[in-house]
């Protein structure tokens, strides 16, 4: 593990990202001002419950969005991704930024052998003879732990188990040695023993390639073991950011704390879980202030009306909650 503070010159830098979807019921804000940095070869987890905007954030980086980026900047190295033409973006996608999704089946082509699919990615970004591409594809399959890789290369996706399909997806995503891998719920559809294998594979590839990983998941167990830094999202905003131990041991935002307390934990068994009352507000019912205020047990006078910014807690650790605003915080700040 490297340092837990964001690097001075990050690989990916998202600032003020806002995404809105046009729906029958009007415009729906999905991402409402996200700032996120990912350093070179760093693992950052983006966590939060379904619908909070994790995938939309990832798709914005990849420019694979059906919605509209209404504001913000996404810099990758020295390049502003939003200013690129589609052909320029295609050269970055797959080659510099790889992506793995939850459902390998929907991202693999059912009528092409897995070997051919990897060869296609390779030849799209590199000048390779077809025999070199084939050999490279088999090497990649071996590297991601597919047994009898030569034989498997001529199989179709439906002939593989879920775990093997995910390995193929990873082989495709890393085929051009990307600097950043975005893994959106890569193990959510998999059983826990397979999940352990896939996460282990991602970890070793990351080391080998020096690649950064944006790990999107709702599984806090996975986050605890694989992330260096964590960003917690709620209703389209990042509400807390910090090193993994900041989040799990010194959580500062009431939502993060409530989420951790609501988890069934085999090491801390109690008859009842501390459930969070209520539900995430619908996008059209968001308060002007903190989106968590209706469920928060610390809510006080600025919360419903004023939007809290990310207040610093410690180096690299911040929380969007007025309890941590030195100008407003009530004297009885709940301690850890």
């Amino acid at each position, binding site marked *: 593990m490297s340092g837990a503070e964001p690097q001075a010159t990050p690989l990916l830098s998202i600032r003020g990202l806002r995404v809105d979807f046009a729906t029958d019921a009007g415009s729906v804000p999905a991402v409402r001002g996200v700032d996120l940095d990912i350093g070179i070869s760093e693992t950052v987890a983006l966590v939060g419950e379904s619908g909070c905007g994790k995938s939309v954030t990832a798709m914005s980086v990849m420019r694979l969005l059906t919605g509209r980026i209404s504001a913000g900047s996404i810099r990758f190295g020295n390049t502003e991704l939003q200013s690129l033409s589609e052909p320029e973006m295609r050269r970055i996608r797959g080659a510099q930024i790889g992506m793995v999704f939850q459902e390998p089946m929907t991202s693999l082509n059912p009528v092409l052998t897995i070997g051919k699919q990897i060869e296609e990615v390779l030849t799209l970004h590199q000048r390779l003879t077809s025999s070199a591409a084939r050999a490279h594809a088999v090497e990649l399959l071996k590297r991601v732990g597919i047994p009898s890789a030569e034989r498997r290369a001529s199989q179709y996706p439906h002939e593989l188990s879920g775990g093997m399909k995910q390995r193929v997806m990873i082989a495709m995503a890393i085929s051009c040695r990307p600097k950043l891998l975005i893994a959106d719920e890569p193990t959510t559809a998999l059983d826990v023993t397979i999940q352990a*294998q896939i996460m282990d594979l991602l970890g070793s590839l990351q080391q080998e390639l020096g690649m950064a990983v944006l790990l999107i998941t709702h599984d806090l167990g996975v986050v605890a073991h694989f992330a260096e830094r964590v960003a917690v999202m709620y209703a389209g905003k990042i509400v807390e950011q910090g090193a993994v131990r900041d989040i799990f041991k010194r959580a500062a935002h009431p939502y993060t704390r409530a989420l951790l307390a609501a988890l069934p934990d085999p090491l801390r068994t109690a008859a009842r879980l501390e459930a969070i009352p209520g539900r995430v507000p619908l996008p059209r019912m968001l308060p002007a202030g903190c989106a968590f205020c209706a469920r928060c047990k610390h809510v006080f006078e600025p919360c419903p009306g004023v939007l809290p910014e990310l207040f610093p807690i410690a180096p690299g650790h911040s929380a969007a909650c007025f309890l941590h605003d030195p100008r407003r915080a009530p004297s009885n700040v709940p301690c850890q």
Partner: protein
Amino acid sequence: MPQAASVSVNSGPQSPLVEVSGLRKYFPVRGGLFGGVVNQVRAVEDVSFSIKRGETLGLVGESGCGKTTVGRLLLRLIEPSAGRVRFGGEDLATLSSSALRQMRQRMQIVFQDPYSSLNPRRTVGDAIGEPLFVHGRARGAELERRVTELLERVGLPGGYRSRYPHEFSGGQRQRVCIARALALSPELVVCDEAVSALDISIQAQILNLLRDLQDEYGLTYLFISHNLNVVRHIADRIAVMYLGKLVEEADAERLFESPQHPYTRALMSANPVPDPDVPLRPVCLQGELPSPLDPPAGCRFHTRCPSAFQPCSHIVPEARLISGPHTTEGHRVWCHLYDDAPNSD
């Protein structure tokens, strides 16, 4: 384990409500030119367990290991290929169809997907009231009163009875499904991945609700889930399945503290606890899950077991009883490493 020779004496509070023995389910696979049976999926093989009244038995194992099939066999939603299910001391196979219908009112099921288990065109009040109406338990104003009461019991305003499923969130829909399952005052509720699709904050609400309902009505649960932490939280005892067979069964605490079967150990070791200071050292299982069309001989786990030895590939291990702390109900393991331990039957 109760291999009761006696009949129908199981009415005391400590006696099992459910006793399953030698349960087997093979699903025919049709194919070929004439659509004949060409093979069979050996989904469940020789499964035996019992659940006491008011107890929660957790059933865990990876997808396709047969958990849902066991749940459906228990409720007799499908016929077993062999074996016996006793409910309240009565063998379900010997019941007449009308007696079975009566019996079914005493057992209910809640599924993972509250979206597909509710008819989008019917109000949730109709959905909850239907079993009461169909079984002639309530009509008219009384039916309305009961539906309101059930909605309120699961934490929803009674006035929501005239709303449609699409107006509810996932967690609220699961509450509606639970209210419907409770309508006939069942004794057993099978929860099949009932909280698996829910977000953490909502999952905690539903787990608390299930616990409260159990305390209030003395419900017995078969709680099926692939999530080990959830099962550890809710279950008194846990049974672990692999490829259609039970491999281990013990008190929940005991199973987590001292798993014995090599598969249970692998499963536990791969389960990430949400704490970065608890090391994760997964035991990697070799190879892939074999097909239930042609499960391995002997111990079904032997092709992937890090401890496999000579008898494993051809002799089916029998249930052995292990003793130790927290083993009030017996800790059963199906593994040749324990062949010296006493036979559990």
